[in-house]
């Protein structure tokens, strides 16, 4: 694993006068499995949006030595950066195999594109194995269970050899078994990639995080290993009065205005 990982410096995002991300610095090393936690409205998703080019931001975001800010979404993606969303977005009308094949093929030339797919590309087969979806490959993605959709999404990042994965609440709404399996999956894939996970589920975080950043009101409140962060008095203060494990919100999209 080469490169310098993800470096964020003084990242700022403003919506109509409201500052959602307010000067965040982050250093995530290659091979890390970093969890971003924080209360609703802390700016976690907006941070990921900024990194992936979805919202305009000030400051600097570098990955593998390349500046990301100012690039359109698909160009950021071509640098090996992939993300998932809170609600799994897979192509519901295409099969699992087709989903993965499309994900694998961003660099294909026009002639390949105009031909019918023959067989299963090697990286797709590997991703099917890794995510355990081999038996379901001819099912339309729309009929998959919730957890399977999340794995498919992760698989779609794996096929194109993504070096940085940004996952937004990957285990929200999953059963206990599914969470465990997802955790194992994340651990496995983070070995040779950088993985950033936004999460509310503290148990899940404690079980699988290698390092943690706590965001609060658009700023980094605390950073370190799970134990370090848990011991931080400011973190306890922010979470005081709240359940330490807030349920995944019923309305995932609108909670952080």
């Amino acid at each position, binding site marked *: 694993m080469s490169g310098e990982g993800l470096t964020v410096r003084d990242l700022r995002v403003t*919506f*109509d006068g409201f500052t*959602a991300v307010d000067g965040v610095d982050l250093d995530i090393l290659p091979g890390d499995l970093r969890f971003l936690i924080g209360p609703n409205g802390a700016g976690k*998703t*907006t941070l990921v*949006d900024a990194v992936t080019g*979805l*919202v305009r931001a000030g400051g600097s975001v570098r990955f593998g030595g390349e500046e990301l800010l100012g690039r359109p979404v698909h160009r950021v993606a071509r640098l090996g950066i992939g993300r998932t*969303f809170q609600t799994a*977005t897979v192509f519901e009308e295409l099969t699992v195999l087709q989903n993965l094949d499309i994900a694998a093929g961003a660099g294909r030339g026009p002639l390949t594109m105009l031909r019918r797919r023959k067989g299963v590309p090697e990286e797709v087969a590997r991703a099917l194995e890794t995510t355990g979806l081999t038996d379901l490959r001819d099912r339309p993605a729309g009929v998959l269970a919730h957890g399977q959709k999340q794995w498919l999404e992760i698989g779609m990042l794996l096929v194109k050899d993504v070096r940085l994965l940004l996952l937004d609440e990957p285990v929200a709404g999953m059963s206990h078994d599914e969470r465990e399996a997802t955790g194992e999956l994340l651990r496995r894939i983070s070995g040779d990639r950088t993985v950033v996970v936004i999460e509310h589920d503290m148990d899940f975080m404690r079980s699988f995080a290698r390092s943690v950043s706590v965001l609060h009101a658009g700023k980094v409140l605390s950073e370190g290993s799970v134990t370090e962060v848990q011991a931080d008095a400011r973190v306890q203060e922010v979470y005081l009065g709240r359940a330490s494990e807030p349920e995944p919100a*019923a*309305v995932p*999209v*609108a909670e*952080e*205005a």
Partner: protein
Amino acid sequence: MTVVLNQSFTGISIGAVLLLIALGLTLTFGQMGVINMAHGEFIMAGAYTTYVLQQSVSGAGVSLLVALPLAFLVAGAMGALLEWLLIRRLYTRPLDTLLVTWGVSLMLQQLARDVFGAPNVQTTAPDLLTGHITVGGVTLAGNRLFILGLALLCVLALTLILRLTPLGRRIRAVVQNRDLAEVSGIATGRVDRTTFFIGSGLAGVAGVALTLVGPIGPTMGTNYIVDAFLVVVVGGIAQLKGSVITAFALGVLQSVLEYSTTVSVAKVVVLVAIVVFLQWRPQGLYTLRTRSLA
């Protein structure tokens, strides 16, 4: 100088017509995202309401004043019915709504043809509204002043309803977050229908006003529908003031171009200008900037 002033008034009066026909759409399209191609036929329904009323009530002025609320109710009821029968099943498929309501519009036109006959019908306008006043060499036509006043009144009423009433709050709540509104105990279905009722009702009011300036016939709605949508699209669907500004701007642009070139050229230039404008601001004049809802 008089020419400029006269043309300015003309532009403003064209703008007032555009505003009036588009106002209902700022609710149904702007707030709810429904592309209702039958909007033009609700305008037609308002115009025919005026016609029917004049057959039974004597006195052009009285019948016109009665026609305004009545047309609002008639067109509004048609809109609410349409929402209940078809549109509520299609909220997740906006493009299909466009085609379905186009089909409805075809049927309503044919219905008008069967009921009222294919030829245009006439209404009598009160004398006050067929005359004009002259202020410093500028001719201010009565019907145009009436339409301008009516348009501004409707904008004011709509703003007040949206801002101040509980209904307005509910409409905004449903628009901003349907699920959240639902769990907060708002009957979203009923709010949708009410919104649609008001939006369609405004089309009916526009129809009454249009009897003063244009033909009343089965195809009158199709004359206005594309223009009405363009006003809302260019204005930006999020805010009423976008549509207001756009309507008057397009009106003035159209009248200035018409004066200096020909009507055809003016129309083509305006349409092309709109396409170019949307390149520059794809979301229209006014947008709500929010976090991406990806």
